[in-house]
């Protein structure tokens, strides 16, 4: 930056030569303010989403910059929510970017007093082992009168109602094929 341009950028100079002698606005605008823009405008992408809290179903726009969620706000196009969100919906970015979120598998062994780390693949295999073992141990083929039961009552599941339809579909399909009957959801609560 040359001395001249520095001087011409000096707000006092701008006050003396421009339209803002009191230095209230145009003259005192900073470099930061000059380059300011909404981060929704500079986002790499925007995904159309839906609020994960209650069942009103407010539409959200999820803005992404450098692979991170940079903003979540209401979608004004929605005939349901018209772009509005309640405090929970408005906090969605904090929800998904919370530093308290767990991102690693955690394992507590029987009688353990602390969490331990576990590899995701290992965890999946261990869970599959336990599901199969519990199923075998508690399998019921037929009732006392010989009518089919085809089931295990040794496995339970309780899902939240923030699961997607597609997820619920696969959960129900797999558990049903497995004979696991005790599949429940927040919808019962």
């Amino acid at each position, binding site marked *: 930056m040359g001395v001249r341009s520095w001087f011409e950028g000096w707000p006092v100079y701008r006050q003396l030569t421009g339209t803002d002698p009191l230095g209230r606005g145009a003259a005192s605008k900073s470099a930061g303010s000059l380059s300011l823009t909404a981060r929704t405008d500079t986002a790499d992408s925007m995904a159309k989403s839906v609020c994960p809290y209650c069942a009103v179903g407010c539409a959200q726009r999820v803005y992404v910059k450098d692979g991170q969620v940079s903003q979540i706000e209401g979608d004004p196009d*929605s005939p349901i929510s018209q772009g509005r969100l309640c405090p929970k919906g408005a906090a969605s970015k904090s929800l998904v970017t919370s530093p308290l979120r767990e991102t690693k*598998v955690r394992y507590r062994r029987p009688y353990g007093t602390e969490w331990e780390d576990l590899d995701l693949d290992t*965890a999946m295999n261990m869970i*599959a082992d336990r599901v199969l073992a519990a199923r075998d141990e508690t399998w019921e083929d037929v009732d006392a009168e010989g*009518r089919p039961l085809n089931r295990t009552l040794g496995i339970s599941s309780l899902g939240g*109602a923030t699961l997607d339809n597609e997820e619920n579909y696969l959960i129900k399909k797999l558990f049903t094929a497995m004979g696991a009957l005790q599949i429940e959801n927040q919808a019962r609560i």
Partner: protein
Amino acid sequence: MAEAHPVGFQWVMAAKRRGAKVFHVDPRFTRTSALADSYLPIRAGTDIALLGGVVRYILENELDFREYVVSYTNAATIVTEEYLDTEDMHGLFSGFKEENASYDQKSWRYEGIGQNAATRDTETQRETAAGLEHESHGAPVNGQTERDETLQHPRCVYQILKRHFARYTPEMVERVCGISQEKFLELAQAWTQNSGRERTGMLVYSVGWTQHSVGVQYIRTGAIIQLLLGNMGRPGGGVMALRGHASIQGSTDIPTLFNLLPGYLPMPHHADHPTFDEWVDSIRHPGQKGFWGDARTYGVNLLKAYWGDAATAENDYCYGYLPRMTGDHGTYQQVLNMIDGKVKGYFLLGQNPAVGSAHGRAQRLGMANLDWLVVRDLFMIESATFWQHAPEIETGEIVPEECRTEVFFLPAASHVEKEGSFTQTQRLLQWREKAVEPPGDARSELWFFYHLGRIIRERLARSTRPRDRALLDLSWHYPTHGPSAEPSAESVLYEINGYEVASGRPLSTFTEMKDDGSTAGGCWIYTGVYADGVNQAARRKSRHEQDWVAAEWGWAWPANRRILYNRASADPDGNPWSERKKYVWWDPDKAEWTGYDVPDFEKKKPPSYRPPAGSSGVAALAGDDPFVLQGDGKGWLYAPTGVLDGPMPTHYEPVESPVRNPLYRQQANPTRKVYTHPINTLNPSPPEEHSQVFPYVFTVSRLTEHHTAGGMSRTVRPLAELQPEMFVEVSPELAAEVGLAHLGWAHLVTTRAAIEAKVLVTDRLTPLRVDGRIIHQVWLPYHFGFEGLVTGDSANDLFGISLDPNVLIQESKVGTCDVRPGRRPRGQDLLDLVVDYRRRSGDLGPHYPPQVTTDAADSGRDREV
């Protein structure tokens, strides 16, 4: 509504701006009350008495929308003379069987019908929460009924209703609910004056209404009022359920519930449904009107979607693979079984029962007695750390070193880290695009279950055991993508929608489904969501570019219909009831139904159509039968079958109540589901002794600033700071009586638990005069637990487990308790306190109030009948 659904409340405010009058009924003055034109403080658990009062007001003053009522409801239908009302039986209906505390519904039937079409006994219906099947259709009844359209026949539904509700006078409403007659009449007048041809009124409830031992009947009462006033199937009318979770509607449509398969098909029962045909017939009830006549098609398509090529006509489409119910396998039964060591493993998928379910201590002790527990969540929730931080650690009931439960915590993907659809509270499916990859090990449930299924199937690949066939034959082929091999959610949606097996062409509507195996579809009511191979749920046409119905935003089941039963928005001749309220009508020139919405009627069936004798199913629906999923095409003021606790709603006291039922000798719902497990002890209520040990009524609900069990709000900074501590709201009068100070501590005691909270003394709570007594109510938020940024005792720990008989949902909106100043004791002293209360309230053993109290001699006026 302003508290828990603020964005939905914008429409209430929009209506208010245009002159609508808003009434708010709530035990406490909330943010909704602040904006309402009139607030009615009510004793928790007495809504049927209030609404019953409105029903009586309508009938006594003949303020019903008569033309609508005669044509569209079963008001004119004659009921058999075997039927006896609560008026005759101290609060019970005819058909009550003491031995299993349930009703034989035979005597409730319509005149001229040999027998109600229900094929399963009512106890089984209760055990299997059969009421839930009615979410998409009416209960079974035969189509053709005897009617008296003058409504004068003493046994027509109209007269039965009138007699049933005759004692719900304004004086009685005041006695039961604590609502003054003046306030009640203001509500009743406004409601009736704002209904009819030119106007409609809407009833909105939040699903706290379902959390009562008579929850289904609460909603029935509302529906009766709305039918009498002609507010169903019309714009600005209806009964609006404000559900509390993003896809809780979807979770029942495509259920993860023990008693349902997708599309409200029942999970087979071992005794009732041994064969495919018996299962199908139990759904479609041969001879009945309406769309359930095609139940076989829906069943075949589901099984085809599940087992693909393996499902053939010869093997009944693998019907034999389905597991069978033998009774109640609901979440509370499961928890009690866990305590008893009968359950090995437990999956918790974005759910936090340690805080969010009734009887938190039972929940945590159940978890502590498993072989293994899988918790999938965004945050380290209470249900994952019960072995580390639960209150039972302090009391010594859980000792980490002695607790064998193996816990897997698997981080879950958030709603922006996966694609998929939510079904919101008005049955509208909305697709979410994926914005970012989930962090670290976080994965979607779709990923977890797809890969769990894959691994299990690989393990069993060489198995020859019959029990493994269902897994091995399972159609489990979904394309995956990305570094973590995420299954394609759209491919699952496609399967849900249904397709032609040979060509793979997605079906456009469920009427394209065939029952011969040539089509497959995972959830018949969702067929059309992938019509033309386009994800209709992903449509986002701006509201500015379409009309107010906004049919091109998302997709609503069934058939993208925004208001159900909208045939009722036109008169029997097919003309709009009024220009102001026109919505769907018959266009005689084009000879079809038309309007703003997708007509909920066969498009070409004229209003004048009358079914030929002996027809059934869809063909049996007359041109003026708007309730197309009901067995008789009519809206039911009286339910001749299907509602397990009576054909009409009746006020019963909550299971725990300080008050003797002023209406009937029968105190509480006689058919409620009771668990006689040692951990599930209940507080005594009149007519039992010692109910005064728990003199106060407590109720719980949500704060705007938090979400359910707090897993998605107490962990989020900008929310946590807005409501940072557990508190209890008390009236100044109760504060004076008990000695509580604003911002001081109090603890609340039931026979299950004692919890503490900071005290907010506020004018927003008031004592009520109920049956000559002063009743104090306290309110608590149920969001708090021991993990997260802000913590506190859990209100749900106070509740016992008593369930509504129709849907097995727990009574967790009202109970009795004692309130004491100061903090609760710790450790063993805490257990001692609770034990002491149990001793004072009767005995130390588990306590269960009697189901039937009609012979209790203390009861009041109902003997005079």
